[in-house]
């Protein structure tokens, strides 16, 4: 198809365009391209570190900024306002209202020797901020790994100087504080531009293999309290009962006393009355009373024997009515 196809003069005729206008147009486009690559924005929680030909020039605040294009100026954004958090010995599986933690196979990090050569399981967090973005970018190659290494070494150092029980209880807060101070010391030695804001011990436990024996101690404490409570309960119950008994004894004694005195008064009143009558006619009354009594008494008695006073001997004694004996 292309055979025999030939260019003829006049086919390439430069169109009569206005060259000046085209040049202006191209220059305008170039200017726009240069301008657009000369602006950058720094986000709200960031700082921009600007290097010119690799040399530090300036640090810019959030907002729109101008820079030299084509790699002459390079901008590195650094999140300076952000609180970074690192977790040790556990990992937040899903953060939120109900934060779940996964702690499988974190023993490597969390088990550590205490000063009394026991092993404690310690989980902690470290919160840090970048305070010097230039130092942060250009002084330490791997800041995150550095923070993790330093944090582990420091926590072990501090816990290693506490006894197991101190780590679990009394010294928890002071351990976290000392770890923070010591970590900062080391990171400052590296001139890392990082400020440790907070170290917090989340959990200090006996390690899983011995956890049950610690629970057993808690159960034993409960048992101890139960035993004491039971004893107190039994004590109170018995003492209340005995107090009742004692009160009863006292009340009965009071009753006896009242009865005794009243009876005495009654007896005395009776005697008094009789005596008064008796004194009016003593002999008659006396004889009458005697006879009345004898009458009552002797009429009850079935066996009566009358013996003459002149009889020498009381034997032979005859059972006169034959009713006695067996």
């Amino acid at each position: 198809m292309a055979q025999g196809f030939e260019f003829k003069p006049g086919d390439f005729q430069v169109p009569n365009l206005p060259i000046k206008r085209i040049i202006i147009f191209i220059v305008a486009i170039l200017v726009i391209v240069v301008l657009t690559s000369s602006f950058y924005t720094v986000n709200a929680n960031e700082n921009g570190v600007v290097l010119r030909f690799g040399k530090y020039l300036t640090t810019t605040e959030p907002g729109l900024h101008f820079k030299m294009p084509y790699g002459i100026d390079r901008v590195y954004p650094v999140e300076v306002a952000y609180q970074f958090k690192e977790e040790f010995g556990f990992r937040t599986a899903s953060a939120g209202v109900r934060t779940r933690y996964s702690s499988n196979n974190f023993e490597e990090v969390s088990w550590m020797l205490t000063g009394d050569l026991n092993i404690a399981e310690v989980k902690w967090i470290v919160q840090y901020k970048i305070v010097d973005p230039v130092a942060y970018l250009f002084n330490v190659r791997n800041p995150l790994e550095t923070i993790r290494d330093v944090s582990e070494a420091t926590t072990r150092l501090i816990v290693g100087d506490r006894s197991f029980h101190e780590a679990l209880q009394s010294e928890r807060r002071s351990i976290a504080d000392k770890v923070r101070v010591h970590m900062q010391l080391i990171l400052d030695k590296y001139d890392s531009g990082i400020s440790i804001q907070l170290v917090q011990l989340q959990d200090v436990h006996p390690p899983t293999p011995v956890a049950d024996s610690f629970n057993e101690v808690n159960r034993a404490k409960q048992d101890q309290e139960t035993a004491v409570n039971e004893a107190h309960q039994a004590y109170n119950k018995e003492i209340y009962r005995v107090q009742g008994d004692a009160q009863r004894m006292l009340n009965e004694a009071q009753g006896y006393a009242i009865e005794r005195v009243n009876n005495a008064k009654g007896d005395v009143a009776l005697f008094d009355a009789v005596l008064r009558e008796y004194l009016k006619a003593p002999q008659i009354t006396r004889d009458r009373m005697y006879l009345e009594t004898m009458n009552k008494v002797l009429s009850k008695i079935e066996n009566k024997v009358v013996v003459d006073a002149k009889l020498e001997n009381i034997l032979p004694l005859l059972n006169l009515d034959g009713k006695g004996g067996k």
Partner: protein
Amino acid sequence: MQKIILLVVAFLALIVFSGSLYTINEAEQAIVIQFGKPVGENITDAGLHFKLPFIQDVRKFDKRILEWDGDANEIPTKDNKYIFIDAFARWQISDPLEFYKSAKNENLAQSRLDDIIDGAVRDEVSGRVMNEIIRSTERTMLIYDTESTDGIIGKDAVEKYEETKIGARLDIIESIISSVTKKLKELNMGIEVVDVQLKRINYNRQVQEKVFNRMISEQNRIAEKYRAQGQGEKQGIMGLQTQKKKEILSDAYLKSQKIKGDADATAVKIYAETYGQSIEFFNFIRTLETYENTLDASTQLILSTDNPYLKYLNKK
């Protein structure tokens, strides 16, 4: 034609010019190599630099602090305990020229550091006892003493303070750093160590098992003590109960006897006052009452005729 030559020259000049320019950023340092040999000084200033084009080459190295993390090593302590020590270090290329000559690259440097740091750690740790390695100060620790249980009644296990005048972790770290520093200086590798830290110190598996068993037996002993204390306190309370009970009852007995006694005394007084008016009459009616009460149907009564009651029987 002249125009074309000018253009070509300008183009070549641009190539040459651009080939003689290079930048070093804040995280970098460099040396210049000419025909395979380093020439000139270390270039540590960030910024734009010149070199001869084509014949000079630039080697860049990291200026930042670099990481080193060795493997955990099992090391016996002076008191014959086998522990795993995992150390980490931070180092820097302090002299790129020397570094280029002896270490060439970072990987080689890392493996040289392995030897040097592991050796220093081993030397320092094996000359120390366990307590020195774990402890860092001389502070007294509060530990629970489960051994002495004699006659102690209390809510908590016995506490005692353990005095240890050993705690050398910081000294050990210091010694390791100075030993590594010295060795690196001798080797003149262009490397400086910034820091060495002991990241992890662990027992080996078997010892760890033993530690756990000891901890468990300690806890069991504490648990037993609590239980025994509970029982002891219970017995004490029961004893106290018996004591209190006897106290209350005897006190009540004492009071009630006193009340009764007082009443009896009052009664006696009342009787005595009234009966005392006529003792003879009192005796008389009391005797009569006695007869009435004591003599009943079963009584055999032998009466003499002398008896005043029968006085009329004898009268003839």
